[in-house]
């Protein structure tokens, strides 16, 4: 029997967020990251079914000026990508933590989550930058 838990969000030092809900993780970039990148004009998302290990190149975010890699924050298989970003990449700037999500990963190793920062730790991390 599946036991439902409240989703919890974790963060990486590369400014990605990971919202964990049972064995799935929704992934995106933080307000700090989108603000650093500036106006986002294109997001190259992975294909459904592709498997990543932590740190692999997972997506590419293009601003007016430059392209930046987004790394897989945890290991897992892509089960869904955000279709809205194809036509409206600026959604990442407007709503980085909600409508601007990148993809959903099927978590391969739950223990990896423990190495990520929680909201307070991430906030402190950003303040130290």
């Amino acid at each position, binding site marked *: 029997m599946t036991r439902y838990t409240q989703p919890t969000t974790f963060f990486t030092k590369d400014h990605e967020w990971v919202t964990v809900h049972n064995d799935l993780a929704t992934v995106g970039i933080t307000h700090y990251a989108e603000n650093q990148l*500036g*106006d986002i*004009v*294109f997001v*190259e998302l992975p294909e459904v079914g592709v498997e990543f290990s932590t740190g692999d190149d997972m997506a*590419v975010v*293009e*601003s*007016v*000026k*430059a*392209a930046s890699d987004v790394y897989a924050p945890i290991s897992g298989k892509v089960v869904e990508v955000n279709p809205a970003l*194809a036509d409206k*990449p600026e959604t990442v700037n407007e709503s980085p933590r909600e409508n601007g999500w990148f993809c959903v990963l099927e978590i391969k190793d739950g223990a990896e989550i423990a190495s990520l920062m929680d909201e307070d730790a991430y906030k402190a991390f950003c303040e130290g930058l």
Partner: protein
Amino acid sequence: MADTTTENLKRTPLHALHEELGAKLVPFAGYEMPVQYPMGVKDEHLWTRTEAGLFDVSHMGPCFLSLADGIGGGDDAHAEIAALVETLVPSDIAGLKEGQARLTVLLNEEGGILDDLIITRPIGEEAQGSLYIVVNGAVKDADWALFERSFEGKAVLTRADDRILFALQGPKAADVMSDFFPGCEELKFMRHMPFELNGSRCIVSRCGYTGEDGFEVLVSSEAGLPLVREMLTDDRVKPIGLGARDSLRLEAGLCLYGHDMDTSRDPVEADLAWVIQKKRRERGDFPGAERILKALTDGPAETRVGIRPLERAPAREGTAIEIDGEAVGIVTSGGFGPSVDHPVAMGYVRRDLAEPGTKIDLMVRGKARPAEVVSLPFVPHNYKR
């Protein structure tokens, strides 16, 4: 171009103002320069196309070149300084009218492009025998060393890169400028006028690097700082960073030295043959004339073209261009054009593929993305002719 360290970076006289305005500063051409302000690259770009954008370009290389035995002496003195400069550039400098400016290229012995620069003939008999020249910031030291070597004993170089050089660009630039420099609104594109500002001489030129109508102003830092501050209080004026400067010039189809041209390219393949006036072609008396005249007659092997990616993915500098898996060229500048609202690029392709409408593939991260050769510019120039 970007330096790997932030140490030893030079600062322009407007540096403190950039910080006050909340600019994000990055290393560029040896200087710490604003890449964007809080407004952001896209909105800064769009603002410049509809209002007036103010750019600090003091990192560039403004200078004066004057006859060693003194200036003054009217047309003869101009002919003399022009003859010196024409040994390094293929444009007709002798034929400039007083107050007229021309874009040209500095050539090496093989006809490769060392830099692009704007040369202006001053106004007034007493100023003849000198030229106002603006070269690129990234290569100004090398350019100036070449001038000094080439003109030793004949002409004297005076650097002016301790001053403020700023640009005001956009459809409202002329209205704003006329409040500060009455009469400058009458200038035509590529013409200049000297002004006195609080006892300080400054040079107002109608030119720019955005495709819009606009001006560039060279002014002492003492007189320039209050001027720029006051201009920024005008509702029509916003400070614009290097990010938008790059997307504006790319949409306008204008070359960035070190990217869209360098010593490996001659002016013909860079699609800048128009800087070589008829008189100079006939005389063939410029560096690398043999190669360049041959390219003019036979056509170059490759040529610079506009590239329109047909999907949303931008293709950046260095992206390979292919047709059916065969390498046919390379992207030299690429990004997103906020005014046209799609990706834009420039690059070099084989001459037989330079026709607008030619279908090409851009190899972005290993994937072939469809694109098309297009004529430049992506947005029409809005110069005051």
